[in-house]
């Protein structure tokens, strides 16, 4: 204990060198830890969001974009596909397909995406209702846990959607009825928490037949919107994604007629309803196979080669994302390890140069009864203390840093990172830091051990 105190005081008797070592330690450790935190959590989220989806079918374009848009909800759509084109995949009797879920994206409310889909979508993520009900009629929405929390949405609240994925007040759809919150999901730990779900026909209705004139800001649509007011409307592209023109179609009539507020309003029923509007568009189909076999293996290829559709394999595309992320992470990790090594060197040099001035002190300790082993330990402890303190600072830095990063990506992508989560693997970073501390002090400690006290004391 007394030795520990002496180590501690020795460290602070050379404040400049010690502070430099600590800063380097904290930077190296902090960078490594923050990389681990962000990587692990992003991977977790990516894996969670795979949700057993085997195939995504959408418009031609980049397969990665198709996946990112329709499964991860972080990119723009590749375009639209019509119900008629994907009709075979919506057939409940398809021999290969267990589930196929239509997805229509294109609108948002305060950057949270509104997804037009069937109830089967929520089943992909095992989502349970926390409050309220599933959406049954057009303009009814059931919202993810994170959306409800962040936007303080409650059952009975209404809001107007906005076109695209930015919270842009010029793109608010104020010509249609506001959406009504009818239910809130339990947290699922998946992307569903960040989404607002409604029926496919709601999306069609919003983008369906309506006039293009600018609405006055005090439009009557605003009347029943309470605290979740939307913004003034300037102009908006009324069409979902690709410029395909819906003007002229009036779907609101038959959509409203078809929607029956019943608990049987499940995926299959909805899929059948979709089939009655073959000319309408959706963004993609999410597909789960019954079994993986050689037929499912060749299905994407045959779709890509023989149709105007694009089929993409989520697992494959996500591995490509990892590979791209990996290059950047690897470079940063190498930098972090370099900093950690330099911090070890700085401890080494700081101890070594302090020994020159401390030879007499070390001899004095021997005179007063300390053994060689004690001197060895004293120096090791100084290295260890620096490493430990550096680790603690780095740990704090990493979690604060992850918090800042989480704030940045939450705004951009609606993905959340828990900065306070401590990974089990962080224990290895701690152990490595301590190991660096020990290694850096081994040689100085050995020199202290070998101090020739007679010679040192004779020189006065």
């Amino acid at each position, binding site marked *: 204990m*007394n030795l520990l105190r*002496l180590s501690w*005081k*020795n460290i*602070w*008797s050379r404040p400049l060198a010690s502070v430099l070592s600590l800063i380097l330690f904290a930077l190296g450790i902090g960078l490594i830890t923050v990389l681990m935190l962000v990587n692990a959590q992003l991977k977790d989220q990516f894996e969670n969001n795979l949700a057993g989806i085997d195939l995504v079918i959408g418009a031609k374009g980049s397969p990665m974009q198709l996946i990112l848009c329709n499964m991860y909800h972080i990119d723009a759509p590749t375009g639209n596909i019509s119900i008629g084109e994907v009709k075979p995949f919506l057939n409940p009797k398809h021999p290969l397909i267990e589930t196929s879920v239509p997805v229509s994206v294109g609108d948002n409310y305060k950057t949270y995406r509104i997804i037009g889909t069937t109830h089967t979508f929520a089943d992909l993520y095992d989502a349970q209702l926390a409050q309220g009900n599933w959406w049954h009629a057009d303009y009814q929405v059931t919202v993810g846990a994170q959306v409800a929390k962040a936007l303080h949405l409650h059952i009975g609240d209404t809001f107007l959607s906005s076109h695209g994925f930015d919270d842009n007040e010029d793109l608010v759809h104020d010509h249609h009825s506001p959406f009504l919150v009818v239910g809130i999901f339990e947290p699922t730990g998946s992307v569903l928490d960040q989404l607002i779900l409604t029926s496919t026909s709601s999306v069609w209705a919003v983008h369906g037949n309506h006039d293009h004139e600018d609405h006055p800001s005090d439009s009557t649509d605003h009347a029943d919107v309470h605290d979740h007011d939307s913004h003034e409307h300037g102009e908006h592209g009324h069409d979902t994604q690709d410029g395909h023109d819906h003007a002229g179609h009036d779907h609101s009539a038959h959509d409203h007629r078809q929607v029956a507020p019943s608990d049987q309003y499940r995926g299959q029923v909805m899929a059948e309803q979709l089939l009655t509007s073959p000319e309408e568009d959706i963004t993609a189909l999410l597909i789960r196979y019954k079994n993986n076999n050689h037929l499912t293996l060749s299905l994407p290829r045959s779709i890509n080669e023989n149709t105007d559709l694009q089929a993409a394999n989520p697992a494959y595309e996500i591995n490509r994302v990892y590979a791209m992320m990996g290059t950047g992470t690897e470079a940063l990790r190498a930098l972090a390890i370099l900093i950690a090594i330099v911090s070890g060197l700085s401890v080494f040099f700081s101890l070594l140069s302090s020994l020159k001035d401390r030879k*007499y*002190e070390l001899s*004095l*300790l*021997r*005179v*007063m*009864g*300390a*053994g*060689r*082993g*004690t001197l060895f330990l004293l120096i090791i402890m100084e290295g260890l203390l620096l490493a430990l303190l550096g680790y603690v600072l780095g740990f704090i830095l990493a979690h604060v840093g992850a918090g800042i990063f989480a704030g940045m990506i939450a705004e951009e992508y609606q993905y959340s990172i828990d900065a306070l989560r401590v990974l089990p693997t962080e224990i290895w970073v701690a152990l490595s830091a301590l190991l660096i501390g020990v290694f850096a002090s081994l040689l100085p400690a050995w020199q202290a051990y070998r101090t020739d*006290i*007679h010679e040192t*004391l*004779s020189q*006065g």
Partner: protein
Amino acid sequence: MSQLLSAHSISFHYPGSADLHLPDIELGVAEQALLLGSSGSGKTTYLHLIAGLLRPHSGKLMIDGTDIYSLGERQLDAFRGQNIGIVFQVPHFLRALSVTENIAMAQRLVGKNPDLYRIDELLTELGLAAKRDQKIHHLSQGEKQRVSIIRALINKPRLILADEPTSALDDKNCTSVINMLKEQATAQGSALLVVTHDHRLSKEFDQKIQLAS
């Protein structure tokens, strides 16, 4: 009666130089003696041999009934911490610690709890009460030497060795420091051996041993 310190036919040589034969010493309990020699006569070497900081080529040294050269290194370090207090020509300290902490460290290193009351008492007695919590580098040379005397005394060692304790001091400080050493050694029954070439000290000691140059 048993002697506290007895050194017999101790010889030592540095690599490549001639053997240094050192005079025998006999010192009784609480006795005080002066070991005189000019510079280069091996005074400090002898003191280090007696303190067990150095091992001789041949010879035998008994301190309070213990043949110290028969001890292993770790035991010798511990024995020295317990039984021998050393005052050096130029006092050195652990610079990261305060006056009191430096003295307390001597007690801690032999496994004792610091006796803060006694440290205070000694500091007051030697006129250093106001400096107790200061860092060592704020002290004057004379003050430092007095603190080093307290540090040498604090474990109530059987033997106190002083290596030129006064050579860096002026006459006034010289007298006061040597008197302090003698008084404190007497007060706690420690034997005192002062190694010096400082003839100002000759009159202060009855027993003198001369080193051949």
